[in-house]
């Protein structure tokens, strides 16, 4: 969705706009009029288990934001829509049909001088059905990745993370992983290559040049993307699935914070 489309449709019946940011306070500093906050961590992650919320909690999170099962949801956020893409991917696990990204995210809206407000809209809660999460289609677990070794894998982290170099100063060990490197056979395609300077997605031909021509990925082949905790790879998952029409892309949300800590899994440098 373009910013122009959104500006013209704000307030439409059947449309709910959600902001999903890395920075948990950013929404409160000003947001698209009528938009509601959806926090990737406090709303979409289970507080105890490292996993997403269950169907009941998801129904509550959606319902209290006025989102029904057939509502059109447009998500935008900071950091070139990383967290917006992540939220969209989590909504996909629950099979929400109509969920879209605002191209360029928060930065594009602001750069165009469009209206921001700190008013938090009062929402009439609606009933969202309790739907069981389906992890079998767009999500990969560690076992799935082990079984997939040899197949196309995309590592979307920075080149330094991919190569396993430690970039931190003395006294500051690389937090979050016992081992540096990447999953054997993974191609390094940093997520940002899919984005323009202004955070919007590159045109389809440019994306094809990177992912198909240069990297040799095949839209018909099952592909797995990963990063550190699954947010940047949600961005690439969106690009491959929705912009390039790949048939089956799974996001390995355990990503490097699981793989780099797991005992006995193979690591390549």
């Amino acid at each position, binding site marked *: 969705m373009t910013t122009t489309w959104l500006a013209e449709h704000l307030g439409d019946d059947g449309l709910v706009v959600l902001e999903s940011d*890395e*920075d*948990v*306070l*950013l929404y*409160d*500093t000003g947001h698209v009029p009528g938009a509601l906050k959806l*926090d990737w*961590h*406090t709303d979409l*992650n289970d507080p105890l288990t490292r996993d997403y919320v269950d169907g009941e909690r998801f129904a509550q999170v959606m319902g209290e934001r006025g989102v029904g099962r057939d509502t059109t949801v447009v998500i935008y956020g*900071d950091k070139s829509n990383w967290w917006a893409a992540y939220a969209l991917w989590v909504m996909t696990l629950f099979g929400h049909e109509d969920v879209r990204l605002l191209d360029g995210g928060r930065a594009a809206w602001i750069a165009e001088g469009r209206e921001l407000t700190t008013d938090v809209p009062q929402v009439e809660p609606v009933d969202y059905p309790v739907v069981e999460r389906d992890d079998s289609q767009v999500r990969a677990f560690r076992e799935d990745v082990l079984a997939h070794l040899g197949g196309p894998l995309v590592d979307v982290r920075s080149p330094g993370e991919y190569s396993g170099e430690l*970039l*931190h100063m003395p*006294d*500051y060990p690389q*937090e979050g992983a016992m081992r540096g490197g990447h999953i054997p056979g993974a191609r390094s395609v940093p997520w940002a290559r899919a984005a323009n300077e202004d955070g919007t997605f590159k045109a389809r031909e440019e994306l094809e040049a990177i992912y198909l021509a240069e990297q040799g990925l095949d839209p018909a082949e099952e592909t797995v993307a990963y990063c550190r905790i699954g947010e940047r790879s949600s961005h690439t998952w969106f690009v491959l699935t929705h912009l390039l029409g790949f048939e089956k892309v799974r996001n390995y949300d355990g990503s490097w914070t699981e793989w780099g800590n797991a005992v006995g899994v193979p690591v390549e440098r």
Partner: protein
Amino acid sequence: MGTTDDVRADLPAAMTNLAEDFHAVTERERLQLLLELSHELPDLPERYAGRLDQMERVDECQSPLFLAVEVADDEARTVSLFFDAPAEAPTTRGFAGILHEGLDGLPAEEVLAVPDDAPYRFGLAEAVSPLRMRGMVGMLGRIKRQVRLRSEALTAGGGA
């Protein structure tokens, strides 16, 4: 996090006051308080403005934050703290605001005595998620490291 005593244990006075403010309100209001602190974070003085190369980058933060630490050549080894973080990173700015309000102007010895788990004394882990707390832990660790190095350099240099 338990009693008020746990929250205050070994914290400098200004930090204790802040911790108590945070604990006196609801989780939602804690976020507002953090937002206020992000607004109150002072701008960089002229000697650092536009000179991020003179500052230390805090990689643990989600958004780029730059930090400068000065230790005065006075008896108390007074510590001054300077932070730079973009307006689009209000949480990071808020964390810096807590550390600025809590530690700026203290003697080096008191800064070094601040417990490393101090960032968890504000009831923020629940409000912003534990994952986001690493930034503040990183800032505190780097502040203490710089204070230690600069104090040692002053002593070795025969100052005061």
